[in-house]
């Protein structure tokens, strides 16, 4: 798995962190805030996430559901779906909670390794997110739950996730009540 995240402009990350630290100010943000400074890496056009946020959420989604013998989150178009969901589906409150989670993950990287999350090696990113995920999933009501929930849903409801990773059929045509699992092989017949 190639680590596609090049080091983002750390000053930008920190500047945004300071800017958003108030929390309440988040809802004042325009829905389509773009990164102020052009970044070194071309990010796909986004409606909600800044270029930096898009790189971060893409990396997080790919760490949760990586490419294996089937495509992972990026290969299934999950980051673009998340951007669309945030721009058109999410309430302002949800939008700010998502930004808060991204910030917390970056802050965890800063606190642990003194670097932004995207500056870390893939191995460290994996370790850090695994710990973050474990702690957050065991804490009731952590906003990360909603982020993970949507990443997982977006993947398995994508054509790649549903039909390549799993065994979804739009029109099964028949129902067989008793089939050896080995015959189907995977979930979601």
């Amino acid at each position: 798995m190639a680590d596609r995240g090049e080091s983002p402009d750390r000053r930008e990350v920190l500047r945004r962190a300071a800017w958003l630290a108030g929390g309440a100010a988040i809802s004042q943000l325009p829905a389509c805030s773009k990164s102020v400074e052009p970044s070194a890496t071309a990010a796909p056009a986004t409606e909600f996430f800044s270029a930096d946020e898009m790189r971060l959420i893409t990396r997080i989604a790919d760490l949760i559901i990586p490419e294996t013998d089937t495509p992972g989150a990026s290969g299934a178009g999950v980051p673009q779906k998340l951007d669309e969901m945030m721009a058109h589906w999410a309430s302002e409150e949800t939008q700010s909670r998502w930004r808060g989670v991204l910030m917390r993950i970056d802050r965890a990287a800063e606190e642990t390794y003194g670097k932004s999350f995207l500056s870390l090696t893939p191995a460290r990113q994996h370790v850090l997110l695994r710990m973050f995920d474990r702690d957050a999933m065991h804490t009731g009501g952590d906003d990360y739950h909603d982020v993970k929930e949507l990443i997982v849903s977006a993947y398995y409801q994508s054509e790649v996730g549903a039909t390549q990773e799993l065994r979804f059929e739009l029109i099964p045509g028949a129902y067989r009540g008793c089939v050896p699992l080995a015959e189907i092989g995977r979930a979601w017949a």
Partner: protein
Amino acid sequence: MEPEFDAIVVGSGMSGGWAAKELTERGLKTLVIERGRHIEHGADYTDFDAPWELPYLNRIPEDEQSLYPFASQATKHFRMKAGDHPYSVPEDRPFRWFRGYHLGGRSLMWARQSYRMSDIDFEANKKDGYGVDWPIRYQDIAPWYDHVERFAGISGQAEGLEQLPDGVFQPAMELNCLEEEMKKRLEVAYPTRKLTIGRCAHITEATEEQLDLGRGNCQYRSYCSRGCSFGSYFSSLSATLPAARLTENLTIVTDAIGHSVIYDPETNRATGVRIIDSNTKEGRIYTGRVVFLCASAIGSAQIMLNSMSDAFPTGIANSSDMVGRNLMDHVSGMGAGGSFDGFEDMYYSGRRPNGFYIPRYRNVTEDAPDFVRGYGFQGGCQRGSWERGRGMAGIGADFKHALRTPSGWSVWLSGFGEMLPNPDNRVTLHPTKTDQWGMAQVHIDCTLGENDKKLARQANLDAVAMLEAAGFKNVSARGEEPFAPGSAIHEMGTVRMGHDPKTSVLNKYNQAHDVPNLFVTDGACMTSTACQNPSLTYMAMSARAAHHAAEFLKAGTI
């Protein structure tokens, strides 16, 4: 002035569709009035949308969610916007009123479970003294059950049970491995109880008649709530209205809200129906020789109460003061769930839009501790899929790989109990509040009685005991308290049938005692609820009443 139509049917749902089919097939020029908008079978459905084609992962935008409770992107088109159609309830007595205001009504939103009532049900009121006696018995309606089942297409398994008569069945759907095992263990533990595959209005072996209407076999997608382009499950749009259209005797007017029935005291007849155009808010009158109210239990009662005249100051055909009274719904919210160790190597293929059914046994083959009547259970066994990943810790290849395999087996049981008639459970017209068309809103005052609550408690105990006896683990009951009435979406009883014009509104032909050319054939007519899902009975009642209305018209008696 000659009437414009032979028959006017108010409502195009389960009952209205059947009334229209039977009336038109008997040569009557029939007008169907529907308050909701037109929906085109197939074209207006979302059942071919793959998960990745539905907007926003099939979720309603968060800021709109309060406007469309219980809806997804795929079902939003069959849901009303909250606040568009208000009704009132007393503060401490909630009633949930789910409606489907579009052509086809709730026949596009139903769960398709189709069960016959038996003489145990038709005799119950007379035997234990609650409510009034049904003016019919099973033999009166049995041929009509045959008739509607043959046309609709009901798949199921004959079991020879006195409390759940067998019908005209298409081949039954399969139980899965664990359901078969559960059936074995349950029937050993409780020799007089039975687990059978759900009897559902899905075609499994299409007849010529069904194929001719463009209907085909179930494709096991389980997208029924989006509408079925294959016409596999029975709805007004897939079956009855197309059949009625073929006669060339059918006229449909949508966006027409039933306001009142017009009454002529000189002839003691209903002469037509006043409607309000939902778009322009203007009133119109349609005239006909016979009027069928099929606007749902609360809707039909509302129209009757709103049909005031010197002869009927409290609403048409209401000399008994029973119109709007005895509102019932099935007692619901009981049941249990659990998990099962085993069959990890077994799965199923296809998405079966059906579960199993445990027919009533209380006060049939087994006594009840402290209540009359009884309940049945619907349920199913399944394995979870990727959805568990949404709340599961873990990331990376291991996490992804774990979700490839379905999770362990689980079971759910959901009880539906009989609710007793009570004249104080009542629909009235609100004295001051009106809707956006200036019609009086309904006020619904309905609450569960002692027997209903006792029955619910025992249903929970039974559900837990049955699952434990069948070897399930981690068994827990669904909830302490049953849901508020209305939640089962089986509301009925507001214009009940009976022998006596003093205590009931309709006679044995669903004909108003007071006004002989007025018929009510939806859930309003029900003298008791039984515990079976009621739609099949509404179908049979509607077809039977339409047959008799046509006969009476021919004979010149109405």
